[in-house]
């Protein structure tokens, strides 16, 4: 079964070639269908992976091969309870993005052939990041994602603002590349003292063999690189523009899976490989995370553009994830992982809905969309209201559990961490949760309720087919979060060395 993960990574990469070699005249027309087929195949492979690895302790489906032995670089992959849910989320969201391109749902500027190929390449990079067990391999896949995302934003972004979308794409690229460079330095530093890039070996050693100073520097460099991606306040600055200018599929994947690469890196690399360095930095991470929660929510409150609003809400939600990680406790990290998945589903849905609104009104400005969506497009409005309530963390829907566990982690952080600092962060996070509720009910009031402004168009069957799975999963994960926690908890306990 060790071929499964290489196959998972290879399917979208090879599939990306299909639209490219298709006869040029037909390529744009068939590209979305090809995209659905390829990403559907990847989704099926990921389900097989899940069937093989779900609920089993430890790393599964490992495979290893020497790649550049002279540089000590190996092809090492595997999945465990930390990565498996993210793999499934990635394949699901990519598939739904492809479905949304069907039947004229693609970009107005055309070029579906290249878009589909680019998105599939993106999927390869993300999946590779989630299954990599070698620091260099992790870094390479991490970087593979950047270029396709630059194209997605710069080419298929906001068609009213060509200069703006280029700039947004470039800022995104520049900041992440700088972050990645720092991260690589951290990896090299780890290698310089331990002599290996093997994540499993490094995690087992738990920082043994590295001086405290090296650990601190490595943790700082790796942490900064990942924090840009997550994004942590104040490194979030690339995010609102990138989201606002990106096409719908770009926003969905950016928020749904790309941000998770950062938080995943914190759990997979930062916590287990350089634990002592991480312990010194964790209070700072917690404070910045808490600031991010409140800052993101405040920015949402005064936001008039729905896409920007959802983008800023991601800053707040990722703040909860980072707070959970910073607590360095199993409960906090479990919370971070659950919040990751929940955010992927809910924010993915919100961006699809924002895209649907933008298709209809050619703008995501709340004033342009106008009031009374409940009357104008009832189905769309109900999806929007439920997604908003899921995102504000209503217990019983997916968004609650992860953020609750993250706060619980901050309530009782790992030994050696300053309790009072974390308590303050927890209270600040709680205030952020109220502000989150405030801006979402405000949005529902501004566009869903009220006298209908103009006649609207109801959701199409393709749109419903894309939204419904996300909504169903949001409700399921809200009612039985134990399904997900049963998978993440053993893996997290292992990563953190059996608890506190």
């Amino acid at each position: 079964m060790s071929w499964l993960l290489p196959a998972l990574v290879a399917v979208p990469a090879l599939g990306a070639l299909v639209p490219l070699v298709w006869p040029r005249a037909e390529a744009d027309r068939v590209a979305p269908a090809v995209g659905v087929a390829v990403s559907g195949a990847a989704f099926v492979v990921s389900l097989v992976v899940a069937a093989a690895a779900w609920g089993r302790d430890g790393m599964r489906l490992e495979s290893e091969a020497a790649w550049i032995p002279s540089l000590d670089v190996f092809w090492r992959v595997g999945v465990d309870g930390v990565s498996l849910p993210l793999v499934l989320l990635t394949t699901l969201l990519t598939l739904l993005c492809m479905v949304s391109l069907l039947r004229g749902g693609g970009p107005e500027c055309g070029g579906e052939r290249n878009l589909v190929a680019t998105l599939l390449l993106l999927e390869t990079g993300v999946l590779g990041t989630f299954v990599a067990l070698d620091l260099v391999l992790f870094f390479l896949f991490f970087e593979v994602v950047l270029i396709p995302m630059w194209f997605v934003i710069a080419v298929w972004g906001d068609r009213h603002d060509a200069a703006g979308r280029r700039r947004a794409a470039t800022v995104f690229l520049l900041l992440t590349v700088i972050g990645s460079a720092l991260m690589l330095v951290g990896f090299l530093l780890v290698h310089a003292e331990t002599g290996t890039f093997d994540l499993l070996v490094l995690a087992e050693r738990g920082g043994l063999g590295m001086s405290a100073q090296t650990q601190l520097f490595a943790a700082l460099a790796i942490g900064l690189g990942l924090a840009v991606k997550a994004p942590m306040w104040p490194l979030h600055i690339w995010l609102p523009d990138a989201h606002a200018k990106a096409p719908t599929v770009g926003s969905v994947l950016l928020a749904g899976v790309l941000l998770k690469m950062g938080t995943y890196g914190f759990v997979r690399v930062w916590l287990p490989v350089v634990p002592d360095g991480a312990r010194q930095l964790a209070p700072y991470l917690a404070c910045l995370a808490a600031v991010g929660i409140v800052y993101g929510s405040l920015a949402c409150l005064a936001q008039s553009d729905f896409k920007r609003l959802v983008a800023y809400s991601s800053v707040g939600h990722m703040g909860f994830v980072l707070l959970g990680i910073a607590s360095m406790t199993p409960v906090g990290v479990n919370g971070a992982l659950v919040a990751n998945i929940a955010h992927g589903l809910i924010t993915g849905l919100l961006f699809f809905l924002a895209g649907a609104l933008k298709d209809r009104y050619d703008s995501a400005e709340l004033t342009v969309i106008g009031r009374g969506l409940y009357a104008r497009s009832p189905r769309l409005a109900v999806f929007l209201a439920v997604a908003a309530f899921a995102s504000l963390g209503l217990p019983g829907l997916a968004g609650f559990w992860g953020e609750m566990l993250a706060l619980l982690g901050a309530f009782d952080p790992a030994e050696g961490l300053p309790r009072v600092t974390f308590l303050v962060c927890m209270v600040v996070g709680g205030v952020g949760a109220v502000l989150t509720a405030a801006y979402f009910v405000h949005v529902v009031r501004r566009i869903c309720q009220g006298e209908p402004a103009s006649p609207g168009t109801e959701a199409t069957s393709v749109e419903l087919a894309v939204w419904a799975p996300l909504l169903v999963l949001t409700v399921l994960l809200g009612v039985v979060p134990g399904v997900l926690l049963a998978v993440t908890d053993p893996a997290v306990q292992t990563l953190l060395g059996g608890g506190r």
Partner: protein
Amino acid sequence: MNPAWVIALPAVGALVVLGLGTRAATGWVGAAFGLVTWLAGLWVALPYVGSAESERHVLGEMATGVAPIEVALTVDGLAALLVLLATTVAFLVLLYSVSYLRDEPRRATYTALVLLFTTAMATVVLADDLFVLLVGWEVMGACSYFLIGHYWERPDARAGAVKAFLLTRLGDIGFLFGIFVLGTATGSWSIGAANESAASGAMSTSQATVAMLLVLCGVVGKSAQFPLHTWLPDAMPGPTPISALIHAATMVAAGVYLVARLDDVMAASPVARSVLAVIAAVTMLGAALFAVAQDDLKRVLAWSTVSQLAYMFAALAVGGYAAGVYHLLSHGAFKALLFLAAGSVAHAIGTTAMTEMGGLRRALPVTFWTMTVGFAALAGLPPVVGFFSKDAVLGVVSEEAFQHASWQGWLLLVSGLLTVVVTAAYSIRAWLLVFCGEARGARPQHEAPWSMRAPLVLLALASLAGGVLVLTPDLVDPLGRTEGELVHPVLAAVTTVVLLVTLLLTYAEWWRVDGLDPAERFGPTRRLLHRELGFDRAYDLGIALPTWALARTVVATDRDVVEPYVRGAGTGARWLGLGLRWLQRGNVQVYVTAVVAGGLLLGLGAGWLVP
């Protein structure tokens, strides 16, 4: 039968009703599910009413990383009573709504939300685990939000919904942290474990105090007590049956239920009890005074709900478990009755403004007689149930005052007796303005149809007969948590005399002003009370406006920072090049330091370093 059925059946009903859409049968199908849920509730609850036994059903377990969350339900005497109250009122409201919303296009979502609410309330009542309880608690809040906003074209409905949701949510964050404290103190999320731990002394007083003060935040929000009291009257633009179910009989009483449920933890913390006593004393009198000055019938009833909930908290604050629970049940019946009757009035004349009413006695005989019973219960007139339950509350408070000479007891006794006077005044004022004197507005053509009248009559009978519960105190307090009797003859005689004098004086004043509003006598004070002492304005100025200003600042900051960041990124790249040259000189430490410092500066400072 597994109590999970009481939770599952209405949830299934909600899905079925949503599937039916706006078909004519939607309301009846909803009522049928209400009936089935009620029968399931009877089946589950009746064996435990008045019984000291309890039964725990574990449905599943959920890993967290610390103590696992056990999804468990418990039926005991208290839960059984609340299941009966919730499923009965929910069924009556669903039946009533069939006619009330006959011509409404939105009755499918309405009926589905009422059923979902029933699921959530049953979850709260049956939960053995604090997180399971919290799920039900918050889903109730969401249902309340959507139902207050049912008429979402109306600005007051939109604003009321937002306000209700945010104020309760604010309190619920405290509740969540309270759960953290309780769970960490006991190593389990079970309510039973928390009570045992507190009763056995394993939980320290300070832990109990911190936990209960935080839990009280949620309670104060949900039950609209001071200082989060302002949302309940603004929730009144919702459909009236919703006001009866959610904003009178069940959801707002869930706060009382929670305090009763955590009675042992509460008892372990004298500080928390004192805080609750002060909140109750302030709220019961303040809300009653606000009720005197209102012109809208539903708003009067809303303030009276706030005031009556404070009575229940008063009892619980001095350890009067039986009295608090008894008043919770009694209030659930008579306040649901009052709201449904108010709905019947609104159904007949199309408004809830008392300035448009008057003389409705003849046109709406059933509504008149049933609502009279309701008002008698609210005022506490013998022999209606409200008389006995209020006497039980005041009795336990006076025992605390006289026998233990505690300031909490005296505070609550004085406030409680004053509230008796004010309650009698606003009850008879509303009754006179609605049913007596000359008609001031539209004249109704007909009494409501049977599906609306039947719930009124049933609730009126329950309110008339509910007094017999005092004969069997074991029914509300099977474990014998509180000593003493439920009946206090001397006190009852005193309050009844005070009550009758107040009724007569108000009636005389109404006669004197020729059938107009007797509250006008208070002049400028009345206007101040009508504005509810300006709490809304203060919250706007003190919280809402600064938050908005801060939000706009954040948005402006982020916008102005983007440009410098782009240039800062270029600077960062140059530093990177610099670092690489150092690396070639072989000094890794220096290189790392430079890159890290560059990254930090880029992150933290570029926004204002590079103007």
